[in-house]
């Protein structure tokens, strides 16, 4: 095991290989507050990549309802329980990562889902965290809660799948940090499936190899956001590139949300993988739950997000989500307009901070008829 730096847990940790960061790292921000679980992302991915034989059960992208939803079944709570206490001291993780907690003879602390665990992708869908007592729906804030968690591969700095593979069949691309399974080399041992805490590697029984989210790299190579991003009708997703904290750039949308304003947080940072899908936590969820999923900064992130209406730069950047199919590498606000551009600075999109309001009178003065919304 090598010693590597994991900025998400505020300390060094043990990892199977020495620290080797890509030239740039693919990353994403998902705004959980905007997701409506329409599963457009899931279908976009499914039709593009996993419509083959042996891929029937695979969802490289899925959306689960928290607290009870999970795919595969209990992927998160099983590992949380195996890992034991996960205390933070300020921004430093005081517990053990899944690499540090690996049992004797293992490369990572993991477990293997069985066939039945993949049989209920919609389990817990729209289930509240608690009972809704008679009349409770009439009161605000609501007594009970749930939220939607959209998930893809996190293309981690320290992938557990990569560490777990005994024959080096998984690699992290130096040019963009995307983590791939070499389909020519994989022998289907499923060590990666056991190792990934997010369970985003899937075994294909008809090719005999393990397969995973490829971040739509053929699109990324063209500067276009992945399928699950551009098909998101809730416009909850933004793809881009993340720097390490000390190199964060003010005009980089991902850096701004993650490092500068700190409103987007990794999922289960305590596992130690330095995952790169960052979530704006749900604003209506108990702090303890958010903290378990997103780490010790969850409450501050919620506070900053709720203040976005008084924060034009942040509000402007949030308006860029879903505004273009291209990867927005830079952004700037000019008055009431936010401009997204590519690496070279060429403008990709301009979005007003406030959409203009058009009022459609109920009566059409020219035809002298009453407009209705019915056909």
């Amino acid at each position, binding site marked *: 095991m090598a010693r590597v730096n994991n900025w998400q847990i505020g300390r060094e940790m043990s990892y199977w290989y020495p620290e080797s960061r890509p030239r740039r790292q693919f990353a994403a921000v998902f705004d959980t507050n905007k997701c409506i679980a329409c599963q457009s992302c899931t279908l976009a991915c499914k039709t593009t990549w996993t419509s*083959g034989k042996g891929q029937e059960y695979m969802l490289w992208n899925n959306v689960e309802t928290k607290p009870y939803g999970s795919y595969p079944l209990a992927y998160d709570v099983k590992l949380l329980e195996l890992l034991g206490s996960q205390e933070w001291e300020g921004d430093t993780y005081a517990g053990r990562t899944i690499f540090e907690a690996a049992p004797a003879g293992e490369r990572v602390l993991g477990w293997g*889902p069985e066939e039945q665990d*993949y049989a209920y992708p919609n389990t817990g869908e729209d289930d509240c965290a608690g009972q809704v007592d008679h009349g409770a729906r009439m009161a605000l804030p609501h007594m009970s809660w749930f939220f939607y968690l959209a998930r893809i591969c996190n293309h981690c700095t320290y992938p557990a799948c990569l560490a777990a593979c005994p*024959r080096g069949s998984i690699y992290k691309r130096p040019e963009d940090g995307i983590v791939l399974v070499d*389909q020519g080399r994989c022998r289907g041992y*499923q060590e990666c499936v056991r190792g990934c805490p997010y369970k985003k590697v899937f*075994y294909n*029984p008809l090719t005999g190899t393990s397969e995973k989210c490829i971040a739509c790299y053929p699109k990324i190579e063209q500067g276009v956001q992945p399928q699950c991003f551009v098909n998101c009708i809730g416009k909850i997703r933004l793809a881009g590139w993340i720097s390490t904290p000390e190199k964060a750039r003010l005009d980089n949308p991902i850096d701004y949300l993650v490092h500068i304003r700190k409103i987007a947080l990794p999922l289960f940072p305590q596992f130690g993988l330095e995952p790169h899908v960052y979530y704006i936590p749900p604003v209506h969820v108990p702090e303890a739950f958010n903290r378990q999923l997103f780490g010790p900064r969850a409450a501050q992130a919620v506070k900053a997000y709720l203040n976005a209406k008084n924060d034009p730069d942040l509000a402007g950047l949030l308006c860029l989500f879903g505004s273009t199919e291209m990867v927005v590498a830079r952004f700037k606000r000019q008055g009431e307009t936010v401009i997204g551009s590519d690496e070279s600075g060429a403008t990709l999109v301009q979005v007003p901070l406030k959409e203009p309001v058009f009022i459609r009178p109920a009566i059409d003065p020219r035809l002298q008829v009453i407009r209705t919304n019915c056909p």
Partner: protein
Amino acid sequence: MRAEGMLFAAALAAAMGLTSCSRGPERAPEVLAESVRSIPLDPADKAWTAAPEHLAKLVPQDLVEPRLVTPTTPELLVRALTDGSSIAFRLEWADDDQSDQTGPSRMADACAVQMPTRRDKDLPDPQMGQEDRPVYVTYWRADWQAAVNGRGDAIADLYPHAAVDHYPFEAGPLEANPAAKQEMAGRYAPAKILGNLRSGPRKTPVEPLISAGPGTLTPVAWQGEDGKGVFAERRWRVVIKRKMPEGLRPGDRTAVAFAVWQGSKQESGARKMRTGWIGLLWRANQ
């Protein structure tokens, strides 16, 4: 290495002393390859009863991670036959469950024969060889056997109640254009497009490989490797046939090693039971 070499020498010495005076079913302290005119692939063929039996003790693979922490299959019965150009081993072990299907956390039973690539004085590391001295591995798997025996290559062959809505490459308009259909199906099966035949359909249940240390297993060109496994009475009996090592003559010795995986025990890849090098003597006709 030295310990392995000493064990090998001890096995050879014991072989010379014991095989000549045994009666009934021979239990040889090394693997003795009996010469036959043609090698039967069927493990139940009576020709196998003529070959002396060697009891190989298995140990867990506990040198590289992931290690097998808890021992499973304790031993393996090995017989060998040769027709001069090929050599075949019949491996037999007790297994409570026939695991001949793979799926999520579902592994297949398997076994393998390992031989040095060269007849050097010093043997390579017994566990998958080493960088300057690779080893040949011939690997048999129970799900491949099921495919060879006729099991189909569709999800319903593995999960009879599976319901599939639609595969885009089976859309009506593509029926008239098989090339386009095949090209589209390939997009969803990159491993197959790359020639990585980890699953069916297959012509043989075995695969020839070369290894130069743990994690380096690589397929090599086929040279007549074949095999057949039959599960009965809670035992696997598997024949693995491969080319005879170059230059080996009747009366010559080389070495062989074996590995066994029990799918029901979640064994695959490095999680396996294995032997060290065992002496292999091509017994001259008596």
